């Protein structure tokens, strides 16, 4: 408890210093009074007793001082004093202070921003109950013998059912399916598309989350015969329903079916995706036939481990069940034989982990560069103050005292910079959270106590770092020499310049590393964006339409009629060159595949299967998108409803499954029941930018078995202008039909490469900043050396040195640290770029072009920074310089 007493004393002394002084006086006065009383008792008269007492007491002022020195705030007072001196020296050179503070603010601001993001997204535990017991569960599929390994496959409904019922290792297990639903127009609001999740009733209890309002699902809600129920996200409730609690138990229409709103989730709840807005029970939504499939992989499963059960044991338990299912139907190769898991957090943020850590490392580099720059400035300044420091040392100024002043000055700088940086970080985080709300767990990004502590820690570290570098540079053994030297003042500060050059070399090295990272990411992004998608991407407009199954039943004529009419009307619009419809356009993702067998080929061995991505398209689609028809023809006009029996395959499909054969006229048996004849081969398209094309087979849209997909419209120019007229056509056909993702192909591809462009842009910004800082450092050092060596150079010129010689001399002096740093940085980059290998697309970490670009850029900007002081040196007027001595 002693430390507590001590702390209390310190606080008291600090806060009530005046009081303490008065108390001390009172205490001493009492002592004297006692002495007087004693003297009186010994027989002295009043006057004599008083004098004797004061005499015995000694000097009260000195006594008061010695006593006060024992009070602990003396040390604090000293600190405040140093702080005042530090601040005062800084205000004497406001230009220097402002520059140093700005540099620090940038460095600390960037670093704190990234730390906040990393902490929010990656480090904070998930806001669920006992989140470390939550596992994301997947099937581990190997559908084709020798055809590859597919870990982390999504789970089939029937498999979940078996896992859920038979496992002994999970306290509960929930099913999650993603979907989009149309919320019908109501109360004067337009219909809109919502990101919904179909979940088993026990999802919320499994996660340990309760709705903020109303109730969650019950097992009774989660059945095909139950009435529709829906839980809304907090933001949807606020935005669409004005935060009105009476929405509970009211009916809303999703895809034209009635749902009672039973609950509102808390504002922070964002699962499975950060943009999920509505939850509905999966067994109510998805037909029983699909839910019982063992090979229709479409769901995610989250499980809560029983206490004391390890993930490995639990997964082994599920694998046993899967293996039994697999073995029960050996002729179906698409039933997985094993299970696999990963922690829920990793599932949610695994993709952003590496980019975020790379960014954090980049900001740490930037911060280090900023620190080095400030240290450099401080060294320069202490060099300018050498004489003053030397005199102070000569007069008996303590080394500790000088060191403390150095540190304090740097602390004041860093604290001011850190404060500004914190503001900067606050703004940056707000901006980031608003522009990148697609990042997983974006709503967990907050500045809090830990971030504040981190900032303080960074400030102190930076202050120590830059302060110590400059302080250790003032060696008091050389102080006397300084005094001699400065009276002659010809070529001083050689050692100082050497240290500054070393700092610069390190700074340049770090800059080179950042530049390398930036140039690789930019190059990779450019490669990505210039990928040939296999189709036209200019002036193509896309929009997604999902017809509600309740009104447009599949299979049936309703969707066929809708699409037929829609395309006719859109094609009739002025400025529309062509229009088509496809379930999933290039770049929109993988979506789905189908197993098939080729009738003309020998039957596959049991347990083997072949799959290809499947799409449904209208006959005009290939022409709209400019996908070349390499052989055969597009779908015939008679390919409607039950008559549909044609299929068109992509080039890679033909290459993979019909090597050295003509595929036209061959037959595909799809999903084991329906026979299609191949009538055409079309060019490959990429299902997502950055992935190699995969085999695709197309089926006739007018078969009437799909009711959702993407409308594609092409025009000569300004295709964006067509967005409104096309949507008006759709509204005229069905007032309640929302249209989603109205994007040109360019925008669509831009959106899917947002991560890459964001990363490249951010790292480039950091790299440019650090290049500027390094150039400024070079400029500063060379200018300083020029000032120091003016006399020497003057003499050289007076003795006949050529001005070009002087120019060359100074340039070489300035460029030496740059070249050193460049070599250092390139060598380090060769190692560090390996870390971003996974973030690069068709770009090697040791890309020679990138290395060359960085080297040239760096040398050019260093030369630019050096040329001005060097040129000034060569223009020196020797007479003037020598006269100034």
């Amino acid at each position, binding site marked *: 408890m002693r430390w507590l*007493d001590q702390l209390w004393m310190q606080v008291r002394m600090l806060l009530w210093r005046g009081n303490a002084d008065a*108390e001390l006086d009172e*205490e001493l006065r009492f002592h004297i009074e*006692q002495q007087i009383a004693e003297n009186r008792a010994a027989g002295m008269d009043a006057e004599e007793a008083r004098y004797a007492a004061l005499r015995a007491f000694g000097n009260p002022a000195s006594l008061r001082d*010695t*006593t006060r*020195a024992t009070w602990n705030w003396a040390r604090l007072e000293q600190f405040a004093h140093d702080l005042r001196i530090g601040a005062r020296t800084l205000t004497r050179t406001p230009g220097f202070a402002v520059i140093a503070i700005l540099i620090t603010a940038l460095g600390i601001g960037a670093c704190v921003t990234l730390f906040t993001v990393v902490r929010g997204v990656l480090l904070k535990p998930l806001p669920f109950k006992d989140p470390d017991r939550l596992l994301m569960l997947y099937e581990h599929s190997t559908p084709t013998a020798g055809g590859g390994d597919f870990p982390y496959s999504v789970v089939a409904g029937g498999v979940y059912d078996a896992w859920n019922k038979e496992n002994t290792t999970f306290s509960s297990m929930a099913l999650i399916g993603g979907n989009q639903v149309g919320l019908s127009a109501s109360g004067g609001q337009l219909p809109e598309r919502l990101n919904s999740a179909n979940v088993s009733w026990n999802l919320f209890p499994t996660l340990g989350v309760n709705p903020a309002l109303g109730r969650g699902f019950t097992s009774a809600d989660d059945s095909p015969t139950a009435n529709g129920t829906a839980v809304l996200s907090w933001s949807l409730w606020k935005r669409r329903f004005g935060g009105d609690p009476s929405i509970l138990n009211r009916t809303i229409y999703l895809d034209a079916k009635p749902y009672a709103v039973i609950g509102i989730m808390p504002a922070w709840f964002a699962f499975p995706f950060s943009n999920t807005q509505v939850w509905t029970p999966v067994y109510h939504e998805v037909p029983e036939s699909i839910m019982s499939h063992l090979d229709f992989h479409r769901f995610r499963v989250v499980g809560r481990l029983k206490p004391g059960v390890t993930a490995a044991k639990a997964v082994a338990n599920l694998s046993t069940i899967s293996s039994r299912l697999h073995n029960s139907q050996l002729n179906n190769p698409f039933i997985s034989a094993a299970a696999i898991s990963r922690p829920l957090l990793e599932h949610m943020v695994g993709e952003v982990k590496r980019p975020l850590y790379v960014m954090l490392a980049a900001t740490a580099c930037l911060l280090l560069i900023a620190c080095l720059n400030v240290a450099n400035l401080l060294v320069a300044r202490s060099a300018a103050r050498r004489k003053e420091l030397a005199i102070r040392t000569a007069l008996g100024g303590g080394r500790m005292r000088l060191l403390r002043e150095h540190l304090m000055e740097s602390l004041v700088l860093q604290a001011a910079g850190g404060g500004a940086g914190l503001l900067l970080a606050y703004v940056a985080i707000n901006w980031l959270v608003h522009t990148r709300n697609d990042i997983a767990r974006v709503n967990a990004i907050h500045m809090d106590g830990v971030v504040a502590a981190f900032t303080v820690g960074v400030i102190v570290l930076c202050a120590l770092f830059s302060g110590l570098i400059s302080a250790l540079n003032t060696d008091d053994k050389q102080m006397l020499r300084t005094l001699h030297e400065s009276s002659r003042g010809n070529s001083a500060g050689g050692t100082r310049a050497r240290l500054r050059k070393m700092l610069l070399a390190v700074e340049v090295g770090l800059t080179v590393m950042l530049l390398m990272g930036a140039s690789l990411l930019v190059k990779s992004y450019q490669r990505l964006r210039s990928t040939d998608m296999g189709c036209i991407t200019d002036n193509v407009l896309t929009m997604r339409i999902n017809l509600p199954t309740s009104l447009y039943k599949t299979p049936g004529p309703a969707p066929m009629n809708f699409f037929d009419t829609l395309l006719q009307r859109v094609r009739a619009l002025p400025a529309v060159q062509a229009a088509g419809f496809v379930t999933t356009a290039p770049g929109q993702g993988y979506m789905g595949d189908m197993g098939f067998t080729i009738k003309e080929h020998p039957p596959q061995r049991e347990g083997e299967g072949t799959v290809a991505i499947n799409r449904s398209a209208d006959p005009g689609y290939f022409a709209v998108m400019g996908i070349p028809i390499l052989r055969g023809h597009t779908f015939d006009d008679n390919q409607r409803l039950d008559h549909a029996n044609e299929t068109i395959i992509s080039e890679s499909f033909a290459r993979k499954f019909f090597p050295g054969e003509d595929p036209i006229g061959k037959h595909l048996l799809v999903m084991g029941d329906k026979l299609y004849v191949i009538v055409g081969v079309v060019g490959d398209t990429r299902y997502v930018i950055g992935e190699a094309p995969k085999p695709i087979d197309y089926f006739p849209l007018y078969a009437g078995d799909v009711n959702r997909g993407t409308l594609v419209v092409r025009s000569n120019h300004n295709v964006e202008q067509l967005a409104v007229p096309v949507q008006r056509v759709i509204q005229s056909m069905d007032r309640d039909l929302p249209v989603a993702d109205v994007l040109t192909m360019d925008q669509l591809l831009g959106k899917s490469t947002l991560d890459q462009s964001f990363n490249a842009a951010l790292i480039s910004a950091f790299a440019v900043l650090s290049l500027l800082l390094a150039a400024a450092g070079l400029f500063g050092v060379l200018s300083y050396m020029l000032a120091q060596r003016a006399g020497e150079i003057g003499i050289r010129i007076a003795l006949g040195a050529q001005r070009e010689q002087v120019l060359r001399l100074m340039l070489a002096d300035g460029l030496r640290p740059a070249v050193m740093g460049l070599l250092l940085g390139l060598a380090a980059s060769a190692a560090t770029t390996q870390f971003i290998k996974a973030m690069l697309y068709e770009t090697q970490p040791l890309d020679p072009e990138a290395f060359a670009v960085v080297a040239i850029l760096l040398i050019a900007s260093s030369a630019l920074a050096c040329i001005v002081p060097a040129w000034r040196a060569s223009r020196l007027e020797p007479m003037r310089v020598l006269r100034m001595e």
Partner: protein
Amino acid sequence: MGKPSDLVQGTLDSLILKTLSLNPMHGWAIAKRIQQLSSEVLQVQQGSLYPALHRLEQQGWIRGKWTESESGRKVKFYSLTAAGRKQLEAERANWNRLSAAINLIMNEA
């Protein structure tokens, strides 16, 4: 008997702690008490008494408290804390060791 001696360097703290181990008292009384117990040999100078008292208080070994004396005047009474009691034991042991050693040397025949 000659002039009252100044205290042996560094022992004032121990003496104050020892004095206070009996009962709380104010600065004046501490000085008197030390004088008395040492049969007037040791004289505590005010110039060192009060800094010592404040130092001990800062270190948490004694605690000062303002109380009214019999005469109705506010007086600062010092008392020993638990940590102070421990410190006193340590210093007493140290002193015994030291003084025994010094005795050995001084009285060697």
